[in-house]
C-alpha cells in the first residue's frame, strides 16, 4: 500500500493490509508530531502537503530499492497530509518479511529515503502563532535553473 491520505493513520490496519501468510515478521516505523521543535520551541501542530502522484511513485521506487537490497518483502508507505496535532502519526512504513533482520533493515532504509526525497513538505506551527516550512533535504537531482 502506497498512499497519501488526509485521515488518521492506523498502524494495525496498515500492518494487516501489508502482511500475508508467509510473513513471520512485521516491522513498522511511525513518525509522530512532537510537542517541541528540534530547538525546543513549543509546537502545536504540523501541516503537510504533498505532490501526490510523484510521492506515491517515489514510495514505489523506494520499496523496489529496499527489496533489491534486503530481499523479498511486502512494503507499505503511507503519509498523511493536512493539519496534524501533536501526537498524531504523520507517516507510517510497514515491512512484512519471512524473517526479522531484513524487515528491520528495509524499514529503516525506507523511512530514511522517504524523508530525504519524497516530494512532501512540512510547516511547523508554533505556540506563539508563527509558522515555518521545515526542510529535511533538497531532494534528489540538481538545482532548477
Amino acid at each position: 500500500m502506497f498512499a497519501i491520505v488526509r485521515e488518521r493513520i492506523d498502524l494495525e490496519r496498515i500492518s494487516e493490509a501489508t502482511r500475508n501468510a508467509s510473513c513471520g515478521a512485521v516491522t513498522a516505523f511511525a513518525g509522530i508530531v512532537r510537542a517541541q521543535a528540534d530547538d525546543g520551541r513549543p509546537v502545536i501542530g504540523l501541516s503537510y502537503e504533498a505532490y501526490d502522484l510523484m510521492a506515491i511513485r517515489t514510495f514505489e521506487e523506494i520499496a523496489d530499492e529496499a527489496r533489491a537490497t534486503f530481499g523479498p518483502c511486502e512494503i507499505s508507505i503511507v503519509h498523511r497530509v493536512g493539519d496534524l496535532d501533536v501526537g498524531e502519526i504523520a507517516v507510517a512504513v510497514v515491512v512484512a518479511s519471512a524473517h526479522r533482520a531484513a524487515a528491520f533493515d528495509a524499514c529503516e532504509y525506507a523511512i530514511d529515503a522517504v524523508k530525504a526525497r519524497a516530494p512532501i513538505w512540512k510547516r511547523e506551527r508554533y505556540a506563539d502563532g508563527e509558522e515555518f516550512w521545515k526542510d529535511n533535504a533538497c531532494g534528489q537531482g540538481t538545482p532548477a535553473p
Partner: protein
Amino acid sequence: MQIRVLAFARVRELLGDGELTFDLPEGATIGDVWQAAVDRNGALGALAESTRIARNGRIVNDSLESVREKDEIALLPPVGGG
C-alpha cells in the same frame, strides 16, 4: 503553448497559487519555465539553488530539456516529509 505548473510549499506561497498555467513559446525548456516563475515573483530567484523541477512526476536534471504542451511541470522546494 500552455504549460501546467504545480508549485508547492514556499514556492507556492511566492507564486500565490499551487496550480498555474504558463504561456511559453514552442521549444521552451525547463529553464524557461523556471525563468517564467521568477518573472512572476523575483523573490523566487533566491530559491534557485534549492529548488528541483519535475516533469510529469520525474526530476529533470538538465535545464535545457524541452517541455511540451500537456506536460505537468512541478516546482519542488526542499522536502520535509516524515
